[in-house]
């Protein structure tokens, strides 16, 4: 699909499945974002915080999820983006990114968005309003 205008309400964008989450992914995000909370990069610190191992930054997953909309940059922009972080993302988890068009109104396209792990559990869930030019 080349244009969002062709997308009907109730239909979804092509899903994206990420490569298994690696430590390097999280080290890179820590460096790029400036979020050096060690529960995202150092096993011992994660265990001290009562976690079985390091977990991804919620914002890493939220950042990834937005890329479903990047190919449509010439048609509009992400005007509103809201999510809840509802599950932890661990090393080697396989995350799938999804967006379903719920409604179109006045050039505003409202999507339900979610990042789902390999157990089919939602880890991030929210909404995007894509505003068409």
């Amino acid at each position: 699909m080349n244009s969002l205008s062709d997308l009907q309400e109730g239909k979804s964008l092509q899903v994206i499945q990420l490569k298994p989450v690696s430590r390097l992914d999280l080290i890179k995000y820590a460096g790029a974002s400036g979020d050096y909370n060690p529960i995202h990069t150092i096993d011992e610190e994660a265990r001290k915080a009562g976690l079985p191992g390091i977990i991804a930054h919620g914002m890493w997953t939220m950042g990834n999820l937005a890329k479903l909309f990047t190919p449509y940059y010439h048609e509009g922009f992400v005007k509103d983006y809201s999510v809840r972080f509802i599950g932890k993302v661990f090393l080697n988890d396989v995350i799938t990114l999804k967006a379903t068009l719920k409604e179109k109104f006045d050039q505003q396209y409202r999507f339900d968005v979610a990042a789902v792990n390999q157990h089919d559990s939602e880890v991030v869930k929210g909404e995007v309003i894509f505003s068409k030019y």
Partner: protein
Amino acid sequence: MFEQHIGKCSNKVKNIVESGAVKKFAEAIGDPHPIFIDEETGKKSRYQRNIAPPTFPRVFDFGVIAGLNLPKKGLIHGEQVFHYVRPLIVGEEIFCWLKVEDYVEKMGKSGKMGFLVLKGFGEDPTGEIIFTSKQTIIITEAVRKEMIV
């Protein structure tokens, strides 16, 4: 324990949507799209510049809220919201600050949970707000107790 901070704001800080930082960020979220990193693609776009991904404000300095001392460890990021008037444009200056929007405590499974809502603002040099953000931070009872000690 954070109720007395509701309404407080940080100082405004000048940030630059720096091209190298945008590239590094786009790569770190697995979205190295030409609209973020390729100068030519940016030039041909409606903004005639590259733009930044919607979650890029994570990189910005939002200043310091005097007296608000959050624990260094154990905070849980519960919710995140961004609202944009337009995308952030590479090279532009954005002035950012934070406001303590709300703090409530609710009884949860593992004791009283604190919910701190921080609202972020980003305005251009003319004073027009380009984006706002809202971050909900969950502070568990265990973490709050550690702070008092």
